[in-house]
């Protein structure tokens, strides 16, 4: 046999810094009102991508922040809990961008309560907003890939891989996304589409992070790097995973965490 790999890696344009140049790539960011997502949108644009954005929620604050992230580009108000809403918005943004090459979902519908005080409505709302919303966004984006190799990325927080008191519901929803990533990576691999998660540790905007001074904050001293993530910290990884050069990375939950998930 003299033929090469049955599915060769992409012929990434020469002369570019492979993995960090997104010229000609079209990306949708769902949940763009979140601080981490806003930084990802900026980094994608800096790398040359055309970016369309949606919100994760349709409350006033979310829509105000969404407008800022959109920066005049393609934008749709979306409630990630509503699959039809996600589908229609994805179609519209895809039309505006001329197609979609990558989708990034930031499903951070936070919920904290002891289990005895968690209502049926909470279970529905939190599971659907985080896990169901990511599923719906991945489904809609995959339809827009139209058989071409795409990139699906979920941005999660560290409760997806570690347990914490009073976060059982949110943690279950977030960790469920990792199961989605693993299985969907297998399903879509033959098309060249990759599916990954970025797991972000404690950030400046994480609820309950405590004071910023190290000597006043036991949590801060628990993080090996002794600082919270800035919104921009996960952004370069999102750029790399959205690029054509990351085609051999799939099914992974990659941690940008200052080392907090690495120690005993």
């Amino acid at each position, binding site marked *: 046999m003299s033929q090469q790999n049955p599915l060769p890696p992409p012929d990434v344009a020469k002369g570019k810094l492979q993995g960090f140049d997104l010229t000609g790539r079209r990306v949708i960011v769902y949940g763009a009102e979140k601080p981490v997502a806003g930084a990802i949108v900026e980094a994608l644009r800096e790398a040359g991508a055309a970016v369309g954005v949606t919100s994760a929620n349709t409350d006033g604050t979310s829509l105000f922040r969404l407008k800022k992230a959109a920066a005049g580009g393609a934008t749709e108000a979306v409630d990630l809990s509503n699959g039809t809403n996600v589908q229609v918005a994805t179609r519209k943004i895809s039309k505006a961008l001329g197609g979609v090459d990558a989708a990034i979902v930031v499903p951070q519908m936070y919920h904290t309560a002891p289990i005895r005080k968690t209502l049926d409505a909470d279970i529905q709302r939190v599971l659907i907003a985080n896990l169901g919303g990511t599923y719906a966004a991945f489904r809609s984006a995959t339809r827009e890939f139209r058989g071409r190799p795409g990139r699906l990325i979920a941005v999660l927080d560290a409760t997806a891989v570690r347990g914490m008191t009073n976060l059982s519901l949110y943690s279950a929803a977030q960790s469920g996304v990792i199961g989605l990533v693993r299985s969907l990576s297998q399903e879509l691999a033959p098309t060249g589409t990759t599916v990954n998660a970025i797991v972000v540790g404690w950030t400046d905007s994480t609820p309950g992070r405590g004071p910023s001074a190290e000597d006043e904050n036991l949590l801060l001293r628990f993080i090996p*790097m002794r600082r919270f993530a800035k919104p921009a910290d996960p952004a370069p990884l999102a750029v790399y995973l959205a690029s054509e050069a990351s085609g051999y990375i799939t099914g992974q939950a990659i941690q*940008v965490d200052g080392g907090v998930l690495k*120690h005993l």
Partner: protein
Amino acid sequence: MALHLADAGADIVCAARTRSQIAGVAEEIEAKGRRALVVPTDVSDSSQVDAMVEQTIAEWGGFEVMIANAGGGGAASLKHITEVSDDDWRNTLDLNFSSAFYCARAAARHFRQESKPGNIITVASGTALRGDARLFVYGAAKAGVITMTQALATQLAREQIRVNCIVPGFVLQKTLEDPDEIARAQNQGSRIPVGRVGEAWELGPLAVYLASDASAYMTGEAFIIDGGGLAGGLAPTGWDVNSGIGGVAS
């Protein structure tokens, strides 16, 4: 990895056991307008690693990133446990595990002496994370590399030294020309979810990401690049639970 790092603007010290293994890469780096320093080094010998670092400091004044990439399965890894000699065991661990420790230690000493931030990147293997009957010595050595990476990340974070690990699955080390080798690679690729083995250049952008400030908040990470192999593994690749057929028998 070296060529992508050079593309991104880095000067590269090329170390391998023999000069002939790295002379060509050094020429390519220089053709890109970057500096290359060839230092033949057996990284399983700590004194040679220390000498390589000393030569780098003497000629270039220092360095910011250490990539400990050495490794190899070796015949010892393919034996039944009852036939693995003490020397087989030690040699495989020296090449695959101790080498990473020697490189990390030499780099950490340099960063500490200069009181500057640093970056250490180790390289393990997917065999560190799943059992492989044929590669148990090699897998054990590479598992040590991952655990060492995590622990060193926590130890060195306060000194602003980051330590991360690249965990490749099946990745070709060179462009294949021999038809038998290509056939073997295709067969191997058919068992990997993305339907192909990785190509050497694909590790380059990942190395650039980890070596740069783009990954400033990442430490202790075992970054898997394996075409989806480790994300699956519950059934043969491609198995369809709807029909109960498909997949590739192993």
